[in-house]
């Protein structure tokens, strides 16, 4: 079929050999000038991130399953959880430490996971930058607020 035989319709009517349609582009193609192919200071950030995900995952499995057992299953289940129950647990530095560790590891693990998801799926540089800023802001806020509550919790609040 010669190109001139093809009947052009709709949005394609304007295209011809002299005025070809834009190619079907792939997202963010690699070029000789792609950052990283030459120069650029290298860090081990991604390596440490990868190792952190594995190690924190193992620790979190223990912390979270233990937390769920205590809160929801053992000793009367979820009905026992009340202000007094939480106040009693946080009187002990051990449970304070447990919850603090769980908060920090879960937040950093989750934030790093979402960071990789954003890097994988956000195509435009602006989108990925702002999504990550939103993620970092939410992470910092949650971690700081949680830490503040664990350390300044007052069981006699009225």
């Amino acid at each position, binding site marked *: *079929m*010669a*190109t001139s*035989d*093809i009947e*052009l319709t709709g*949005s*394609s009517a304007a*295209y*011809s*050999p002299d005025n*070809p*349609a*834009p*190619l*079907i*582009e*792939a*997202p*963010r*193609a*690699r*070029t*000789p000038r*792609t950052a*990283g*192919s030459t120069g650029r200071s*290298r860090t*081990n*950030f*991604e*390596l440490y*991130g*990868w*190792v952190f995900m594995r190690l924190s995952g193992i620790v979190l499995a223990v912390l979270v399953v233990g937390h769920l057992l205590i809160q929801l299953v053992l000793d009367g289940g979820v009905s026992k959880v009340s202000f007094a129950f939480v106040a009693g647990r946080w009187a002990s530095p051990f449970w304070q430490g447990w919850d603090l560790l769980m908060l920090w590891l879960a937040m950093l693990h989750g934030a790093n996971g979402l960071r*990789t998801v954003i*890097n*994988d*799926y956000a*195509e435009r540089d602006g989108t990925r930058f702002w999504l990550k800023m939103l993620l970092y802001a939410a992470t910092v806020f949650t971690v700081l607020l949680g830490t503040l509550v664990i350390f300044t919790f007052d069981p006699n609040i009225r």
Partner: protein
Amino acid sequence: MATPVMDKAEAEAARPADSPYITATFRIRRFNPEAAAESYWEDFRVEIDPKERVLDALHKIKWDLDGTLTFRRSCAHGICGSDAMRINGRNRLACKTLIKDIAPEKPITVEPIKGLTVQKDLIVDMEPFFQAYRDVMPFLVTHGNEPTRERLQSAEDRERFDDTTKCILCAACTSSCPVFWNDGQYFGPAAIVNAHRFIFDSRDEAGEQRLEILNDKDGVWRCRTTFNCTDACPRGIEVTKAIQEVKRALITRRF
């Protein structure tokens, strides 16, 4: 121009009872930037021996039905790596895929490989793929004077990277990787496989440098271990395993 669609009743009536031929439908993703901005599916009915390959059917279509069909192929015997395409939703070499193995009773879909810019029909721009390949320095690096004879290596040392020497750079693995589909900045499995081939070669001296390149944010750490690349490789290279070995080398170097 002859219509590409063969009349089914006529085709079947003309065929003797013991004929090995079947009538298979090839549903091909067409794109011609000189005619339209969008790609579209076009069906071709081809009478063909099911023991032949998809490439033979493409030849039949191009030579007998529609000469404008555009695709790459060079050796046609699974060595050059030109004709990787997405056949029935999986990346394969058209020259190594027998029609009887891919359910010819249903329409067989043929598309260009994903994640690279489509230029026409089944042809994609391979330049970003080769750029990633060049970026890992896929050549022997040594220092000092060249020996006057071969650089000898024990059988065990050769065995260490034997799997990754099989790569034919067809891009079936890289264009099956979901990370690469969304972000072409990722080196992709093929580049890592070819880095692996030299990193674990006892004669090479730039392993450190290549590891450093792949330690990049677009390097091995973006691998999500989905095994698409291992499934796609027409040479049977354990691609994901090679990527994991590079990760392990980076970690053991560090700790």
